[in-house]
C-alpha cells in the first residue's frame, strides 16, 4: 500500500513535464510580437545589463529591502538578477556549490517567513536544486580541487539542516532526489577511482567506510569523509 508521502512525491515528479523551450519562446513571439530591445552601447551583454540594472535599482530601493525580498516579491527580481549576474563569474566546478548556496538561501527564507510566498520560494528552491544536480553531474570529482569538494560538502550539510528546520515548520518542500542522484554519482566515481589506486592501510579503511556510507545512501557523509582525508 503506497503511503501518502510517497504518493505526493510521485505526483511531484510530474513537474518534469515541461514544454519545449523553443516552442515557449516562439509562441510568445507569435502572440505578443517581438519584444523591443534597447541597446545602450556596443557589446552590451544581457548578463552585464542585469548587473547594471541591479546597481540602478539598488540605488533606488536600497540594499536592505532587496536583500530581504522573497520569491514572489517585486524586489526579488532584482535579487535574482544579481544572483544571475554573479553566476556569470562562477567557474563550472564551483557552480554546484553556488547553486546549493542559493537553495540554502531559499530554505532560510522559508524558516524566516514560512507562510510568505510559499509557492514561488519552493519553486525557486527546486530550480536551484535541479541546477545544482545538473552542474554536479558534470564535474569530475576525482580531479577537482579539494576546496571545491569542501564547499559542496559544507553547502550539502547546511542544506540537510535547513531542510529539517523547514519541514519541522510543517512546510513540504518536495524531494531532493535529483541532488541525491548526482551526489551518488560523484561518490560512486570517487570510490571507483580509489579502488584503482594503491592505498595505505589507513586509506583502505577510509575507502571501506565510504563504501558503507554509499550503500546506506549517506552520500554527503561519504563525500565529507573523502574530503577530510584528502
Amino acid at each position, binding site marked *: *500500500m*503506497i503511503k*501518502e508521502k510517497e*504518493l*505526493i512525491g*510521485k*505526483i*511531484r*515528479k*510530474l*513537474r*518534469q*513535464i*515541461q*514544454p*519545449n523551450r523553443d*516552442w*515557449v519562446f516562439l*509562441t*510568445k513571439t*507569435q*502572440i*505578443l*510580437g517581438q*519584444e*523591443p530591445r534597447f541597446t545602450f552601447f556596443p557589446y552590451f551583454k544581457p548578463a552585464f545589463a542585469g548587473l547594471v540594472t541591479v546597481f540602478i535599482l539598488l540605488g533606488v530601493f536600497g540594499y536592505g529591502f532587496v536583500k530581504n525580498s522573497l520569491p514572489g516579491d517585486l524586489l526579488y527580481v532584482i535579487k535574482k538578477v544579481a544572483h544571475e549576474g554573479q553566476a556569470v563569474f562562477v567557474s563550472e566546478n564551483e557552480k554546484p556549490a553556488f547553486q546549493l548556496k542559493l537553495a540554502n538561501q531559499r530554505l532560510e527564507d522559508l524558516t524566516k517567513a514560512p507562510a510568505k510566498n*510559499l*509557492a514561488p520560494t*519552493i*519553486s525557486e528552491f527546486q530550480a536551484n536544486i*535541479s541546477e545544482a*544536480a*545538473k552542474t554536479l*553531474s558534470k564535474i569530475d570529482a576525482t580531479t577537482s580541487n579539494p576546496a571545491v569538494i569542501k564547499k559542496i560538502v559544507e553547502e550539502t550539510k547546511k542544506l540537510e539542516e535547513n531542510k529539517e528546520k523547514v519541514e519541522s515548520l510543517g512546510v513540504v518542500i518536495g524531494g531532493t532526489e*535529483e541532488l541525491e*542522484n*548526482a551526489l551518488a*554519482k560523484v561518490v560512486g566515481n570517487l570510490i571507483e577511482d580509489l579502488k584503482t589506486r594503491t592505498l595505505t592501510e589507513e586509506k583502505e579503511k577510509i575507502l571501506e567506510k565510504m563504501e558503507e556510507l554509499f550503500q546506506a545512501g549517506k552520500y554527503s557523509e561519504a563525500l565529507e569523509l573523502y574530503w577530510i582525508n584528502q
Partner: protein
Amino acid sequence: MANLRKIFSKIYNQYIDKIYRFIFLKVNSQEVAQDLTSETFLRGWESFKNGNKIENPQAFLYQIARNLVTDHYREKGRTQVVSAEYVPIVDPREDLEGKAMLRSDINTIRLALANLAEDYQNVIIWHYLDDLPIPEVAVLLNRSEQATRVLLSRALAALRQKINSA
C-alpha cells in the same frame, strides 16, 4: 500598448509551464497540448489588450484552458484516451537507468491521474504540482476551503486506489 505587452509577457512567463502541464495531463498529446496552450494565452492576451480587467490571471487562464479542453473532447465526440507511450520530460539526469525509472514513475502516476474525475485531477494538479495553497485552489474550483480540503483528501484516496490496483 507596450506596457500591456510587458505585463502580459510577465504573466506568460509565470504561467506557461503550469498551463501547458495542466493541459498536457488532460489531452495526453504534446501537439494538442501546444495548440491548446497557445490558444489559451492568445485568448488571454486578446481579452487583456481589449481592456478587460483581469483580477486573477491564474484563475482566468486556467478557466480558458479548462474550457478549451472541454471543447476539444466535445468536438467530434472525442473520448479521453491515455497512452503509456511517450511523455516529453525535461530531465537533467544523464544516467539511462535513472531516466528510465523516472519515466516509469511518471507514466504510472500520469495514467492513474488521467483516470480520475476532472475535479479530482484539478485539485491534485493545483495543490501538489503547482503548490497552490488551499485558499487559492478553492477560488479556482469555486468551492469553500473546507469543501476543497475534503475534495483533495478524496482525490488522493482515489489516486492511491488507482495506483494500487494498477
